């Protein structure tokens, strides 16, 4: 037991960058002021780690302490792995009145019924998010703290954000989640990314969407760049129109930092100049991936600069409209040639 505690501590410290170690330990609050003072954080990381390990041994820290440290670090730095969004479906009547203590108890008891060895830790963050850390074991093995699953849920919302959940544990997690939130089902929301805040903002609609209103739009005002009186833009109207449509499709202002979107296209190849391919029965299979440091801003720029035609195709605007970044596209009715494609769920 002692060894696993120490190796977990070692592993966590390894993940934390040197400059963040001190602040993380302070936040953790398990070290006394003297202990904190005795550590020289300017030393190389491995000496700091050694000192901490010694303290761990002296203080007889339990596994619980260490997992707390990990959790507080992950909550502050969530953008480390891939986060997947899940959507809860068909709420029961009392779904809206689930409260924290009730949820905690329920989730714990449901999961413990399903798995014998499991270590659970829940914490409510300042922004109302409930953070859950699960270390999975099974009938014969103790919980593996090296690869814990993290889940983030905002009570009363139908979304759950999960990282490092294996397919083996997914049904167990899903069942406990649906039962304790008083929903009937859970499904993949087809949205994933490294930036938790981005996928959360996208689904919770916490980004500035542009709607047509009677009030003078701030966009138009912002767009009026002071230029020289002798320079005139001939197609200023078009440019403003493109920008407006682009903002309507992807949102205005700073957009959630989504990094990629994937489309699996299984549609027919249609081109008037290419008869052979157009007449072909099978679909043309391809996968298109868009990637950028901020995908939505890139796409918005594409549309406003004219690289992408406006109005923006529903395929691209669905990313922010539906809050998804994985799409499977098929021709929905093979007979009608003029039917536009529609994004379908996986």
């Amino acid at each position, binding site marked *: 037991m002692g060894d696993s505690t120490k190796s977990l501590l070692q592993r966590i410290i390894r993940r934390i960058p040197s400059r963040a170690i001190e602040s993380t330990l302070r936040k953790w609050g398990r070290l006394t002021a003297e202990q904190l003072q005795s550590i020289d954080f300017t030393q190389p990381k491995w000496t700091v780690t050694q000192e901490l390990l010694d303290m761990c041994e002296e203080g007889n820290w339990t596994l619980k302490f260490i997992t707390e440290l990990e959790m507080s670090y992950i909550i502050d730095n969530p953008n480390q792995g891939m986060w997947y969004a899940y959507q809860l479906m068909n709420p029961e009547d009392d779904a809206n009145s689930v409260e924290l203590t009730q949820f905690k108890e329920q989730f714990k008891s449901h999961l413990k019924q399903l798995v014998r060895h499991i270590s659970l830790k829940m914490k409510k963050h300042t922004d109302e998010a409930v953070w859950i850390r699960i270390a999975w074991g099974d009938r014969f093995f103790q919980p593996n703290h090296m690869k814990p699953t993290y889940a983030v849920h905002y009570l009363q919302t139908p979304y759950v954000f999960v990282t490092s959940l294996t397919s083996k544990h997914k049904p167990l997690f899903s069942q406990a989640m649906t039962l304790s939130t008083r929903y009937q089902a859970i499904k993949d929301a087809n949205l994933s990314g490294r930036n938790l805040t981005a996928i959360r903002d996208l689904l919770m609609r916490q980004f500035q969407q542009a709607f047509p209103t009677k009030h003078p739009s701030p966009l138009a005002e912002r767009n009026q760049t002071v230029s*020289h009186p*002798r*320079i*005139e*833009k*001939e*197609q200023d*109207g*078009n*440019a403003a129109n493109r920008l407006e449509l682009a903002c309507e499709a992807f949102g205005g202002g700073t957009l959630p930092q989504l990094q990629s979107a994937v489309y699996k296209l299984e549609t027919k190849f249609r081109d008037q100049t290419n008869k052979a391919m157009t007449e072909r029965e099978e679909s043309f299979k391809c996968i298109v991936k868009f990637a950028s440091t901020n995908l939505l801003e890139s796409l918005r720029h594409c549309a406003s*600069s*004219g*690289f992408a035609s406006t109005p923006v195709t529903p395929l691209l605007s669905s990313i922010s409209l539906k809050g998804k970044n994985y799409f499977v596209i098929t021709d929905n009715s093979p007979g009608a040639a003029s039917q536009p494609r529609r994004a379908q769920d996986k």
Partner: protein
Amino acid sequence: MSLLKPFSKLPGINSANILLVEFEETFQQSLADALVEETAVTVNVRLAKSLPLPKENEENRPRIDLVVFIINLTTELSFQSAEASLKCLDSGFFLGKVCFMVTNARNASVPTERLDSVRKLAASLHCPLLFAEDQTPAGVTNAAERLLTILKVTAGLVPMTTALYLSNLTRCTVPPDIDQPTFD
């Protein structure tokens, strides 16, 4: 489709009007800022992404003395867009009032074929082809100065020369071996 005509309007006194057409709309802005610095003549700059120009501006648009197509060699679309826009110009412009300006010609990933197509296009229309550096301020000023030299002539502000005369001297010619491999 409305054609842009070179002689449908009267010229202004001591003024010259230049139209910059660029699909990317990036270089034209800095170039325009440099062009209006000129104090000897009043330079009016009109910016466009592509032709034709919108009808509603027809009234207050002055007579255009020089049309410049800015082509960024790194993208194919830039050339294609310029090629499509050419169709909206009255043939009168091709008597010395059109010129091409190419950027990013030194970029190594640009296939030589693309520059060749621009050369051929310019040569077939008897227009001059200028090369410009759009990244540095010095490059922008330099490009603006070269355009001003041509503009002053095409606007009729330089005595003893005409646009047609100048274009005979400056128009792009295709080297005779453009379609042949270099080694022979």
